[in-house]
């Protein structure tokens, strides 16, 4: 017994560590009441009239842990109402979404440094979604933009609020707006884009008319969703 303990101590001594193991002191749970892990469950079946074909209904829910690791400061930043980017100390390229190692092969995967980005951006391209994944249907129509956060070399996707769908345009200046602190969850949905205060929509034109024609039925359809 004593020998076993001694061996474990020695192992601990020589064990190579690559990072300090995190100690989690802040923990929040905001699971909706109807979200629960059920595991595997057959919940029904159907059989064709001639009894040659059968379908079975299988239900499965599972909790996943997304371990953000080296990327964590971006998501923690969201909780604090900040857009954290990264920058290569060698070439100076900066990114949101972040890269923890530089994309330039000449920088040999140099570890990047964290920087707080301004809450300003510009529309690179845009679309107006009239259909989406199951969890987003009730929010349609969604104006989705790929916008370049000031100082970033890349564009990030997020929703544009505070604008009629037909008024969104390329290169329009944006501000980044966060949800109230108590509603944030540390995900990109904690913020959205809004037009910069100085921006004014351009005059009515044929394309706006066409977009309105396509979008109006989406508003009506969403009203019919339970």
């Amino acid at each position: 017994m004593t020998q076993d303990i001694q061996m474990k101590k020695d192992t601990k001594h020589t064990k190579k560590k690559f990072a300090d193991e995190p100690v989690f002191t802040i923990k929040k749970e905001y699971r909706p009441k109807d979200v629960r892990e059920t595991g595997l469950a057959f919940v029904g079946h159907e059989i064709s009239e001639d009894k040659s074909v059968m379908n079975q209904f299988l239900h499965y829910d599972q909790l996943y842990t997304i371990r953000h690791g080296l990327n964590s400061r971006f998501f923690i930043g969201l909780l604090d109402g900040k857009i954290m980017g990264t920058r290569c100390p060698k070439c100076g390229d900066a990114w949101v979404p972040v890269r923890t190692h530089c994309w330039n092969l000449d920088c040999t995967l140099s570890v990047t440094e964290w920087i707080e980005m301004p809450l300003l951006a510009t529309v690179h391209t845009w679309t107006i979604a009239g259909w989406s994944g199951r969890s987003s249907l009730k929010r349609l129509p969604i104006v989705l933009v790929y916008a370049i956060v000031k100082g970033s070399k890349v564009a990030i996707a997020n929703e544009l609020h505070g604008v009629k769908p037909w008024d969104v345009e390329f290169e329009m200046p944006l501000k980044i707006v966060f949800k109230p602190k108590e509603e944030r969850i540390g995900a990109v949905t904690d913020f959205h884009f809004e037009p910069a205060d100085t921006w004014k929509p351009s005059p009515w034109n044929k394309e706006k008319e066409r977009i309105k024609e396509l979008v109006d039925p989406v508003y009506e359809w969403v009203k019919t969703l339970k």
Partner: protein
Amino acid sequence: MTEKVCIIGGATTPFDYGPTGFESIEGGAAECVKETMQDVPGFSLRDLDLIIYSHFSVHFGHQLAPEWIIHDHLGLVGLPHFRVENGGNTGGSALYAAALAVMSGHHDVVGIAGWETMDSVAQSQGSEFIAMASDIRYELMVGGIYPIYYAAMANKWMKENHVTEEDVARIAVKNKNNAMENPKAQWYRNEHKYITIDDVMNSRLISYPIKKYDCCLMSRGVAFLVVCSEKYAKKVNPDGYVTVDGMGLSSCTIRAGDRLNNPGWTERYGPGYPGMTEFAACRNSAEQAYKMAGITNPLKEIDFGEIHDAFSTSEAQIYKALGLADKQSIAQFLRDERTSMHGDIPMNPGGGLLGYGHPVGATGLMSIIECYYQLAGMIPKKHLNKKTVVPDAACGIVNSHAGTGTSISNFIIRRK
């Protein structure tokens, strides 16, 4: 010295969605093999010395390593097997792997079986499953699904290239109407109607500028084909084999927004390319395939293609990436209907993803098989009539495409 790579035959199940009576993946694979054996009586499963499985998402079947079910069912115990997964380019990547195996001389006869069962969940859930191949931390969370990402890219591309909604609608009309001549095509089997540009323009908004009829179909389907050395091809199908003369595989960023200023592309093609509009991995892999096949003028030297039309807009973007048109000519290229059956380079005579369907792991194989049928003179036998025959087809291109252009392969296939 590398071995020449040949294709001697292949088949798909009908592509469909919902109850059909032929849903099981192993049963579907068996039927595809049987059809191949009927077309090529000299081919036997005993001749295979490797089989590669082509399947994208285990989410749909709720079964890890589902290829083991098919492999077992086909009676192939002892035969080496592995699965290739590379998003929408899974089928193309499986051909790439099979071709490498044959070229190396290590394998002689390689089967590829591919499938997807996307009707096992609701359509909107299926869209979300597929979108899990985007970066879930940044894109899926903001309501993003692939039609939305593609729409954002296409919107800017169309403005920059002076291409209109009507221009790309022609592609949707072409492919869905081509599918009406093909009994295995999902559009023929389900919607079953010829459509016009107005029908596309009036279909519901998916994500501007993409409407419902600009989108491919979510499908269930299985496909199988045989890739082999020329020695084997001459033995079992001397008059009906084709050769894979060129191939290329390339990659791009997972998030489309990361293509701005990317040093990897700047090094290859100069600053500003591809932005969020061009498919650089398509251009890059096409260049590799053209070089290998000795093609210097694709528009003149390629007779037709089966390409990855997940959206009518992306087929138009692919034309440009393949070098069939440039910024100055692409709009007119579309308006002149150069890629319709009466054009000089028909694209997707088999219906493509817009018409035949898009069961992801089987899709690229379907494109290869349709290209094979065209080159082997089998279209009148496989389609309902001769309307979708490309006269004197000697050289075809197959394009397989993943993510938002994240992995793309191209193949030049020629009639023997």
